[in-house]
């Protein structure tokens, strides 16, 4: 899959519109859903996806293999664009509370097996975290707040923010490993 992505990306470097359209179709839903998860707003999410593809179209050689898997890179670019967008609009949306309203029975894009496989497991694992740890991940990763803003939001000492984030992420990883054991029947490859 990433081979195909890389081929498409190379064709885009030669200004191939068809290649960009194919790449767009492949990732539209994932990037839109991720941006929506971060911003909680459909209008901003469309702008963010547009920003990402605009960059790919107009800026040469943003991606190369040293940056890891193409899809991971694309998601990082989308996250950065989402953080920028939230900062620009200074939005304090509560995407976390809106999560339930965003539920959809749409099948995951067949192309993006990882999403389908991991999404449910991941959401389950996040739900298992203590409220405090869930909030740390929300504010740090999905809101992209500064350390100071997180400390203020959670009313905790600035110096403890980094440690709490790492702890929360490690707990999540721990829950994921347990989840992979198959308690809830989710099928995951053994890594």
């Amino acid at each position: 899959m990433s081979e195909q992505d890389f081929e498409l990306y190379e064709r885009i470097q030669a200004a191939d519109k068809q290649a960009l359209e194919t790449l767009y179709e492949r990732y539209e839903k994932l990037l839109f859903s991720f941006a929506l998860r971060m911003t909680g707003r459909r209008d901003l999410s469309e702008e963010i996806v547009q920003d990402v593809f605009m960059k790919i179209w107009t800026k040469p050689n943003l991606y190369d293999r040293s940056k890891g898997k193409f899809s991971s890179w694309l998601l990082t670019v989308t996250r950065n664009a989402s953080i920028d967008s939230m900062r620009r609009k200074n939005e304090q949306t509560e995407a976390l509370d809106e999560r339930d309203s965003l539920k959809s029975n749409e099948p995951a894009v067949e192309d993006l097996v990882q999403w389908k496989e991991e999404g449910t497991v991941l959401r389950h694992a996040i739900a298992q975290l203590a409220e405090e740890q869930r909030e740390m991940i929300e504010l740090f990763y999905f809101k992209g707040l500064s350390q100071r803003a997180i400390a203020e939001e959670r009313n905790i000492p600035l110096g403890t923010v980094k440690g709490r984030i790492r702890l929360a992420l490690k707990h999540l990883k721990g829950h994921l490993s347990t989840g992979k054991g198959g308690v809830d029947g989710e099928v995951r490859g053994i890594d």
Partner: protein
Amino acid sequence: MKCEALIDYFNGTLNDKDRAAFEKHLAECTDCREELEELRLLTADLPFAAEPAEPNDGMKERVLSAVFAEEPVTAVEKTAPAPAPRKPARQWLQPLLAASLLLSAGANVYLLAQKEETDQQVAREEPATLAGSVQLAATEGFNGQAQASMVQENGHSSVILQANQLQVPTGTEAYQVWLINEAGDKVRAGTFNTDESGRGAVSYTMPSDDNWQMIAVTLEPTATSEQPLGDIVLAAEL
């Protein structure tokens, strides 16, 4: 600016000065490098936690027409072929953190004067083959990145460098590309300016098949510097 800036660095909330300072710290602090890598690993799957949502009605048409209304990637890019990479003519390695240090250690060495191609457009008579490419990373305190591609065509080797997100030169300033061999000799390999968004490109016919060890970009006070006078902005080992 120490280890505690890691979170703000990851989230991009540092200003330019603090980011540069933290990147300097990162080069010296093993703990921070490991923690940064750990953060990347631990968060790599989180995007997939997003519930699948249907994109807005008509979104694809709106986005693509907005995107295609813009100029695509640079002219040099458009003519550059994208064939399956041939066996590399020489080993191209990833840029090392130490690149800029190595380069400054060889300051004031003898410099060969070279005839320079000023034409930034690459005219191609026959299909060129890509012999390899390398990413140039910004040195501490500078922004930007570049890709240098080695291209073989019509029996010559050329280096095509494309940079973006560079500081826009002011006055007579210009960016110059340098090739450095094992002896530390620096050879000019093209001059370029950037557009207002910090993008620039240059193509240069390699003076000889010397055993080049490094490629670097400096910001020179004028376009005519015969030896590097300005700061090294981008560098990579070859």
